[in-house]
C-alpha cells in the first residue's frame, strides 16, 4: 500500500522511518550552512502528539517493529483510509473530492509553515538593517571626534542606499545566481525571476524576495563595517565609489563561494566545504581585512598616535553597541532561514557569546590597565558577536560561551598590543574586532561544530549524521575552515588593493589636511552635527 506524503513522496511501509530534518536534504541542493528543510510529512501531522513524542525520544528513528505494527493502523489514517474506502466503494465520484481535501490540507500545512518562517525572516531582515542604521552609525559615530560625527554616520547611511540599488540591479544575481564556483551569473539581473514563491535552492519555506531582502541587509552592513578603519579621513565621494565597487567585486563573489549554489566553499557540495552559518568569513573577515588594507594604504590620521583622539560620545557608542547586540539575533538566528529549533540554537549561542566576550574583554582590560572601561565592555560584546557568527548554528551553548570568552580576550589583545606595536591607524578597530574576531570564530567553528546541533553534512549510509567539527571527531574540518579563511583574506587583500588604487588615481581617496582638521561634517557635508548655540 502506498501512502502519499506531501510532496508525493511514497513512504514504504515496513522500513525504518527517518523523521528528522535531514530527510529532505536531497530536496534542497545548496542550503549548505543554512537550515535543512524539514520534511512536510503529512502523516507525521496526523500522528497524535503522544506518539510523536515517543518517536522523537527514540532518537528520531523507529526501530521497534512492534511499535510499527501498532502505528500502522494509525498511519493508515484519514486520507489513506478514505482512499481505501473510496477505492472499495462503488461511487467513483467520492475519490476526487477526498483528494481535493487532501490537496487543500497539504496547502494549509505549507502555508502555515511559510507563515511562521516568513514572519521570522522578515523580522530578522529588519533587525539586521537596524544593526547598520542606527546601530553601527551610532557605535562608530560616538567613537570619533565631534567634528566628524555626521560624516561617519553618513558613511553607514550611504551604504543603506547605494548597496540596496546595486544589490537589486546585479548584486543579488552575482551572489546567488547560478554560475561557477567563484561567482554567480546574471540570471537575476534587475531581480528577474525573484518573486514571491520560494527558491528551493536556498530556502523552501519563504518567498525568494524575503531571502533576497534578508541577504541584502548583510550586503549593506559589510561595507559599512569597513568605514571604521578609515574614519575621519576619507572623502565621501571616494568612499561611495570604492565601497560600491567593493560590494560587487569582493562581497558578492565571497557570498557566492560560501552560500551560493555551486560555491567553492559551500558546506553542501562545495569543493572545500566550509562551515559559515551567518557570515564569519563572508562579512567579518572580508570587511575586517579590507579595513586593515585600507587604513594602511590611506595612512594615519594627522596627529596619530601622539595625540589622543578619545570618543566624543561614549553614550552614543553604548547605544549603538546595544542595538548591534539585539540586531545580531536577526543576523545569526535569521540565518536559520526559518523559525524552528535551529533558529533558537543560533539565538541562544549569539547571546551567550556576546555576554561571555564582554566579560572576557573586561577582565583582560582590568588586569592590563587596572580599570574596566565602558568602551572595553561594549567592544568585547561586539567581538563575541563577531566570533560566534560563523558558529552560531553549529555549536552547543557552552561552546558558544567558550568562543565568546576567548574572542573577548583575544580581540582585546589585538587592539591593545598588536595595534600599538605595529602602529597602523585602524581608527575604530574594524580589523581588531571584525577581522581578527572573524578569523578566530571561523577556526573555532571547525573545532566546536557538532552534528548534534546541525547535521550540516547530511547523513551517511547507515543514517548517522556525518561528523561536522573536531569535537565530533572530524579534525579535518579545521583544515577546510583554514582554507576558507585563507581565501577570504586573499580575496579581500587583492580586491581591496586594486580598488583603492583605482579610485585613488581617478578621484583621490583622502581629504586634505585642512579638511581633516576642519572635520568631515563641515568639509564633506557643509553641516554640523551639534549646534550648541541655537
Amino acid at each position: 500500500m502506498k501512502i502519499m506524503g506531501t510532496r508525493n513522496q511514497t513512504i514504504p511501509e515496513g522500513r525504518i522511518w527517518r523523521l528528522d530534518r535531514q530527510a529532505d536534504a536531497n530536496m534542497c541542493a545548496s542550503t549548505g550552512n543554512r537550515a535543512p528543510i524539514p520534511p512536510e510529512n503529512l502523516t507525521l501531522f496526523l500522528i497524535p502528539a503522544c506518539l510523536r513524542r515517543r518517536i522523537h525520544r527514540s532518537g528520531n528513528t523507529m526501530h521497534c517493529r512492534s511499535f510499527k505494527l501498532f502505528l500502522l493502523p494509525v498511519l493508515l489514517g484519514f486520507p489513506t483510509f478514505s482512499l481505501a474506502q473510496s477505492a472499495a466503494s462503488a461511487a467513483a465520484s467520492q475519490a476526487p473530492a477526498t483528494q481535493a481535501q487532501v490537496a487543500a490540507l497539504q496547502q494549509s500545512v505549507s502555508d502555515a509553515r511559510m507563515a511562521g518562517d516568513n514572519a521570522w525572516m522578515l523580522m530578522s531582515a529588519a533587525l539586521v538593517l537596524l544593526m547598520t542604521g542606527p546601530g553601527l552609525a551610532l557605535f562608530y559615530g560616538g567613537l570619533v571626534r565631534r567634528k566628524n560625527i555626521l560624516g561617519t554616520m553618513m558613511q553607514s547611511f550611504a551604504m543603506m542606499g547605494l548597496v540596496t540599488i546595486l544589490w537589486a540591479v546585479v548584486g543579488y544575481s552575482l551572489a546567488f545566481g547560478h554560475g561557477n564556483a567563484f561567482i554567480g551569473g546574471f540570471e537575476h539581473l534587475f531581480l528577474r525571476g525573484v518573486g514571491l514563491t520560494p527558491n528551493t535552492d536556498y530556502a523552501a519555506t519563504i518567498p525568494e524576495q524575503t531571502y533576497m531582502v534578508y541577504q541584502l541587509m548583510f550586503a549593506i552592513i559589510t561595507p559599512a563595517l569597513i568605514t571604521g578603519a578609515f574614519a575621519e579621513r576619507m572623502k565621501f565621494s571616494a568612499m561611495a565609489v570604492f565601497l560600491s565597487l567593493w560590494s560587487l567585486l569582493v562581497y558578492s563573489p565571497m557570498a557566492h563561494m560560501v552560500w551560493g549554489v555551486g560555491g567553492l566553499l559551500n558546506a553542501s557540495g562545495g569543493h572545500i566545504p566550509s562551515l559559515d552559518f551567518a557570515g564569519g568569513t563572508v562579512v567579518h573577515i572580508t570587511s575586517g581585512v579590507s579595513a586593515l588594507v585600507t587604513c594602511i594604504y590611506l595612512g594615519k590620521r594627522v596627529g596619530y598616535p601622539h595625540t589622543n583622539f578619545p570618543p566624543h560620545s561614549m553614550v552614543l557608542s553604548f547605544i549603538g553597541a546595544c542595538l548591534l547586540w539585539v540586531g545580531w539575533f536577526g543576523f545569526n538566528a535569521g540565518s536559520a532561514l526559518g523559525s524552528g529549533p535551529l533558529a533558537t540554537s543560533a539565538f541562544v549561542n549569539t547571546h551567550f557569546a556576546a555576554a561571555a566576550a564582554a566579560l572576557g574583554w573586561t577582565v583582560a582590560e582590568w588586569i592590563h590597565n587596572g580599570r574596566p572601561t565602558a568602551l572595553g565592555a561594549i567592544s568585547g560584546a561586539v567581538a563575541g558577536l563577531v566570533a560566534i557568527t560563523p558558529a552560531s548554528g553549529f555549536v552547543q551553548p557552552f561552546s558558544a560561551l567558550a568562543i565568546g570568552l576567548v574572542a573577548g580576550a583575544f580581540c582585546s589583545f589585538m587592539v591593545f598590543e598588536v595595534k600599538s606595536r605595529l602602529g597602523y591607524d585602524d581608527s575604530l578597530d574594524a580589523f581588531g574586532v571584525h577581522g581578527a574576531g572573524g578569523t578566530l570564530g571561523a577556526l573555532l567553528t571547525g573545532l566546536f561544530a557538532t552534528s548534534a546541533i546541525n547535521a550540516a553534512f547530511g547523513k551517511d549510509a547507515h543514517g548517522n549524521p556525518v561528523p561536522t567539527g573536531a569535537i565530533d571527531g572530524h579534525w579535518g574540518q579545521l583544515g577546510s575552515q583554514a582554507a576558507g579563511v585563507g581565501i577570504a583574506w586573499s580575496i579581500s587583500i587583492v580586491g581591496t588593493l586594486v580598488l583603492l588604487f583605482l579610485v585613488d588615481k581617478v578621484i583621490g581617496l583622502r581629504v586634505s589636511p585642512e579638511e581633516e582638521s576642519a572635520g568631515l561634517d563641515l568639509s564633506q557635508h557643509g553641516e554640523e552635527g551639534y549646534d550648541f548655540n541655537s
Partner: protein
Amino acid sequence: MVKIEAVLQPSKLDAVKDALLEAGIEGMTILEARGHGRQKGHTEFYRGREYTVDLLPKVKIELVVIDEMKDKAIDAIEGAARTGRIGDGKIFVSRVEEAIRIRNDERGETAL
C-alpha cells in the same frame, strides 16, 4: 572701580555665588573655562593606552566692584572656595576705566 577675576573649581561655583550675594555683591559674569596651574591633569584610558588630560574644566567669575567693596569680595570668594589643596584656583584684580549701564547710559560707580 576694580575688576576681580576668579578662576575656580566648578564644584565651588554655588558656594562662591552665595557668599558674594551675602556680601552684598549682586552683579557677576560666569564663564566656563579650561585650564590648569600646578595641578596635574588626570589620566584617562583609551583602547588600552593611558593618556594625560591637561585641560581641566574650570569656572571663571568676573566682577566689577567699587574700591571699597574689593576686600569684602575677595574675602567672600576665598572663604567659599578654599580647600587648602592644589587646584583651588586664583584671583586677579585689575583697574577698570569705565562702567556704563546700557539701559539708561549711566556712567561711573552708579552704573555698577
